[in-house]
């Protein structure tokens, strides 16, 4: 694979960029693989990459029913942070955060990770208690997170309205400076290119329609739109569609799929320096490198696989934005869209073996899995390769729903994303 660099770019500029290779191949599926990953989102592609790179497995396919990166990886608001409360989550998300640092260099693809800081606002005494609990727990877990007074918050993010007269005045904020954003598409493309380079077959437009199992129950391969493909191991990394796929192996999941919306404004000159999230007022916002305000909303209340979302959800979301940033009332929304997110009862992911031999699942990231992409892919690859979890993901099992040993970030009144 040709290395990407400013020199390569300059060289290509002189010949009208005719020399670039395909970033990833488009092979026909082989008859069988050592590992098949279902779902070419960031987590799936990353899993394939680490399986090939760190576990020496060369015979891997990623099957994608549509175009790679077109699932939630391609529709998320790209907030990256790791200041989760519980040890288990902090470990997982911080593993990811540390990986973001060098991801561009590792995969030789600029994913534009931007550590511009993620600030979470407290609007009442309860918010203060909860966010401070996070700040303290994070510090002792080695996760960066600090407490800001309203004035400090305003300095960090000048558009913020810290007047006492607003409906829910800002009483402080928790700031993770290393939090930020990344270019979501580039994450999928970069992993695809790097995986492809290591020999991984990425097969798009190839929907998995069945999971074939041997008499002993173990996985032998998958049925697809392109016929049967054999596999020793299958990793399901299909976000909103996980229940549907696991059902093919008779595994029923503690998941529900909801439409989750986002929108972008028209592009504006730089006005918003960081990421701001508010749990009480229900919104979050950042400004992309192209200039649009990228704004995330909540889910619709009902389960659905239609990635659309309703106008009243947009309304609720923008109310919050205009309350926090009244000047944005005259800014216009340019495009809205939605994804289908898979939500577990405790809002924590499942990264685990399943009761079916050879079948692994990585799901339940709900409204906030983009930030975890490198970490999740990394430990999931470990889990598949070793048929045992990495220390970092050993809590994120399916069994926890039986024992009640939940990692309940939402119950701890944490925020999404």
């Amino acid at each position, binding site marked *: 694979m040709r290395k990407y660099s400013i020199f390569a770019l300059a060289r290509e500029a002189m010949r009208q960029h005719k020399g670039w290779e395909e970033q990833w191949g488009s092979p026909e599926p082989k008859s069988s693989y050592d590992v098949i990953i279902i779902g070419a989102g960031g987590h799936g592609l990353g899993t394939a990459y680490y399986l090939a790179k760190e576990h020496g497995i060369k015979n891997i396919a990623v099957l994608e029913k549509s175009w790679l990166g077109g699932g939630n990886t391609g529709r998320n608001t790209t907030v990256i942070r790791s200041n989760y409360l519980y040890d288990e989550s902090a470990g997982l998300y911080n593993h990811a955060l540390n990986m973001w640092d060098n991801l561009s260099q590792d995969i030789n693809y600029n994913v534009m990770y931007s550590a511009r800081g993620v600030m979470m606002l407290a609007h009442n005494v309860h918010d203060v208690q909860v966010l401070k609990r996070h700040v303290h727990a994070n510090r002792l877990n080695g996760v960066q997170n600090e407490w800001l007074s309203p004035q400090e918050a305003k300095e960090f993010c000048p558009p913020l309205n810290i007047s006492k007269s607003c409906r829910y005045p800002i009483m402080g904020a928790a700031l993770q400076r290393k939090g930020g954003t990344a270019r979501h598409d580039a994450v999928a493309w970069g992993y695809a290119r790097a995986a492809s380079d290591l020999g991984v077959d990425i097969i798009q437009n190839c929907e998995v329609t069945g999971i074939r199992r041997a008499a002993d129950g173990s996985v032998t391969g998958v049925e697809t739109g392109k016929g049967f493909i054999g596999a020793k191991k299958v990793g399901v990394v299909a976000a909103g*569609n996980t*229940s*549907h796929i696991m*059902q093919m192996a008779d595994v*029923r*999941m*503690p*998941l*529900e*799929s909801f439409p989750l919306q986002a929108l972008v404004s028209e592009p504006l000159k730089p006005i918003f320096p960081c990421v701001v999230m508010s749990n009480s007022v229900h919104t979050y916002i950042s400004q992309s490198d192209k200039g649009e305000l990228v704004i995330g909303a909540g889910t619709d*209340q*009902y*389960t*659905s*696989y*239609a990635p*659309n979302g*309703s*106008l*009243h959800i947009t309304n609720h979301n923008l109310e919050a934005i205009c309350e926090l940033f009244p000047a944005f009332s005259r800014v216009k929304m340019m495009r809205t869209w939605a994804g289908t997110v*898979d939500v577990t*009862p405790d809002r924590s992911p499942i990264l685990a073996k399943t009761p079916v031999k050879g079948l692994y699942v990585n799901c339940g990231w709900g409204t906030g899995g983009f930030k975890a992409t490198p970490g999740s892919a990394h430990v999931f690859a470990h889990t598949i390769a070793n048929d045992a979890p990495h220390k970092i993901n050993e809590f994120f099992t399916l069994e926890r*729903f*039986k*024992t009640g040993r939940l990692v309940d970030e939402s119950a701890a009144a944490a925020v999404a994303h």
Partner: protein
Amino acid sequence: MLYIRCPYCEEYRPEIEFRHAGEAHIERPTNLAEISADDMEKFLFIRENKRGIIFERWRHIHGCGRFFNCVRDAVTDQIIMTYKSGEPKPSDAEIEKAILALKEEQA
């Protein structure tokens, strides 16, 4: 905003009058205290989450206040029928009939 027929109000009403209440027809065991860990997990957490026709509960919370059930296509969001809580789960045939009727209505 969906438009949902409340079987008690006998009328379509806008979604924001309603509160979604999860999957329908998950029975609460009468001997709840005695069920196995597996069954408890199923009862609490395991959901169909089907990519297709689903059964769900709604409450007309800002209307008549009643809980009721709804059959919806989770891919198109089309509502196929709603019925009062306590009424039996409609059969496949009944659902098919309802879908046909809706198609005719639109044509």
